[in-house]
């Protein structure tokens, strides 16, 4: 589902697109006005009347035929009389709202401005010299948490209350590891691809990233696994983040090929799990 913070804003459409959209809207408005005039004219009214009479689904003839069928079944078919009012009402009034063909897919989103903003967030973080020991909101498994702890002041956030915890003391950075359990089990089944409603759509993760993005806090996803499995097994989670740290070239190519991707992708030596490696990745991307 589209998160409110994830919807394209005015600034995210480039100028050419904006002009094209405005011209298109003007055409639609002119066409609507012409159609309204046509509908209001005598010929338009007659045309609509004829079309209604001829309509095979919602016109008067099929409805009358249905009413006749109900009466026939009640009288000759000995259907219960108590069902007659509801049957007549359904025959006469049942809406014929049939969903049409699905609307065409929306045009691809222009991610350029989003990516520029993501790079700016990463650059601002990389340029900060006051951060000897940054405060980092983290989701990771136990071994990675221990490794990060040497370099960072960690906030191991939980799904139930991260908004209050982070609002009380905003972090300098959000780092989400491709973690199966995530912070002792708190994020299990919410990040990796799992056939479970908690995982589909990654509602929690998207809300968390949107919250940080709205406050100019850079966000980093550390992919795990190798090759395309590093993308697929994590439901493309990295595409919401400002930066994906990919374990190998194939995974990097996999993330880079995602059309709806907010941030950039860098390659990091997988052996390095400490926070310093992530910061090096941020500097490389910035």
């Amino acid at each position, binding site marked *: 589902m*589209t998160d409110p913070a994830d919807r394209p804003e005015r600034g995210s459409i480039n100028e050419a697109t904006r002009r094209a959209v405005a011209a298109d809207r003007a055409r639609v408005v002119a066409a609507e006005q012409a159609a309204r005039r046509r509908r209001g004219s005598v010929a338009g009214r007659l045309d609509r009347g004829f079309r209604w009479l001829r309509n095979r689904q919602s016109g008067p003839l099929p409805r009358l035929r249905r009413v006749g069928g109900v009466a026939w079944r009640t009288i000759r078919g000995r259907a219960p009389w108590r069902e007659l009012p509801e049957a007549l009402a359904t025959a006469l009034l049942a809406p014929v*709202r049939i*969903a049409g063909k*699905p609307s065409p897919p929306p045009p691809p989103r222009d991610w350029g401005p989003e990516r520029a903003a993501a790079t700016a967030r990463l650059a601002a973080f990389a340029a900060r010299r006051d951060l000897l020991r940054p405060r980092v909101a983290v989701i990771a498994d136990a071994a990675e948490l221990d490794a990060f702890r040497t370099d960072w002041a960690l906030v191991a956030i939980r799904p139930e209350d991260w908004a209050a915890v982070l609002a009380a003391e905003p972090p300098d950075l959000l780092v989400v590891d491709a973690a199966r359990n995530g912070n002792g089990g708190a994020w299990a089944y919410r990040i990796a691809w799992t056939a479970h409603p908690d995982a589909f*759509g990654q509602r929690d993760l998207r809300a968390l990233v949107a919250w940080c993005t709205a406050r100019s806090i850079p966000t980093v996803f550390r992919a795990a696994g190798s090759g395309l499995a590093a993308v697929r097994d994590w439901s493309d989670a990295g595409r919401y983040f400002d930066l994906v740290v990919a374990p190998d070239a194939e995974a990097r190519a996999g993330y880079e090929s995602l059309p709806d991707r907010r941030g950039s992708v860098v390659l990091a030596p997988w052996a390095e799990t400490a926070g310093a490696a992530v910061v090096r990745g941020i500097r490389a991307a910035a």
Partner: protein
Amino acid sequence: MSRRVCIYSPADLNLVSGSSIWVQSVAETFHAGTGVEVVLPLRAPERRRLITDQIRRLPNVELVDPRRQRRWVPPTGLYSTEALDLIETLDRERRFDAILLRSFPYCLAAIERPQIRDRLWSTYPLEPERDIEDPAHLAELTAVARASRYVVVQSEEMRALFEAVVPAGRGKTIILPPAVPAPGTAGTPASVAPPVARLFYAGKFHPFYPVPRMIDFLEELRPEHPGLELHAIGDQVFRPPGGDAWADELERRLTTTPGVVWHGAVPRDDVIRLLSGGGIALSLWDYRHGSTMNDLVVSTKLLDYCLAGVPVILNRTAAQETILGADYSLFVREPDEALPLIRALLADPELHRAAAERCRAAAAAYAYPRAYAGLAPYLEERPDARLHLAARPKLAGSGRRVGLPLPPGAGSVPPAAVAAFRAARDAAPDAFLVVGVRHPAGDPLPEPGRDPAAALRPSLPGDVAPSVGVRTVDDPWNWWRTLGVALAPDGVDVDPESIELARASGARVVRTGDELVAALAGADPAGAAA
């Protein structure tokens, strides 16, 4: 107990396609139930009897000619409202216990009809071509879920997706996969098919199914295996709106390429007979021409291949991994990866036999009686039907997770439960306790990161707090999939309904710290609960 079921799908049974074969499969599934009478109104008048004749063999299935509704029906069949009128007419003549209606637009129209909506089983409402992120479509799906008696989906994966995007469907979404005859029964092959140099494709011809690439494979392999053939079955050729070039070229290649045998439309039983002569089946998808929602779908044609006992080369998807196992050796990510696998199968009879046996064994889980058994509690309106909704496969790693279900409005985590968990955690340090507070009906769902249940955290002692999560539980059926053990200490006010669901889900219900230690000791740390 006698039950009367109406099945309607907008598929035209004059054409042989996945949708029309599905109708036959579902009719056979319900027919497997004792005392179940099936009424199957046709959308279009019969012109070809390839599928309808197969259905006529079933004594408890009645086919209804669409001309019952109107004297002249065009070849395209009844309009949707006319089809619903016909169902209402049949229902008035003799009441249905369930009305299984396939396709989203029909379900949306049917929920407006008070006469039938209380028995409506809205079937397969998620359609790949509709955008599930579109708020208008989501609102319509929610209306369908609210008004229907049940929502029917194809697979556990599809149920998870539906319940994720349409919370109104939670607790009323049931699974009806496509099904096949039980392996070994009359009319099915007695054993796996022999290794023969043949490739098979059965189904419609659409760019999503890369048949031209399969013909390329044949041409590439013919110099090494001169007797190799590609047998293509089906007669529905998709003609894209942009022009006929793709379809014309495919038809030319199907009819002129040496080694290609195009059978056209063939009844399903004959397809299985043809397949059981031996060969390699290809079930490949090209995602450039179709939605990834197909990853969650169980394909009827895959089950037919499996029943025939031929090895199948297919895309690795969640649903197909569930059918064949993640370690099945013939999964591909791209159609091009199929070529080396065909080569290996042609060269190695042992690989061929092992893959064929795996496929044939997989078909047993989708036999008609098994598929009907999954639906019987709902159709027969058994008192425990609600509990059957909780009987879902546990997720990997759930064995070490403990659930404590509390009633709505719980103000703190009971000390007795904390003490029991503390004792268990000493024995199993990776255990995790999830305190679930039942969501009060009618309240809005919690926003991410702002769960009201977080108010329980201050009552947790500091030593156990890192191993405890709290959450509002609005979906107990799926919640218990993530938990292997239910904690209900004596004297603690737990949610009794949730404990019932926990039992039905296969979770162990324990009362004391010792019982909890024993339950966690028996659980596989990495695997699912027993």
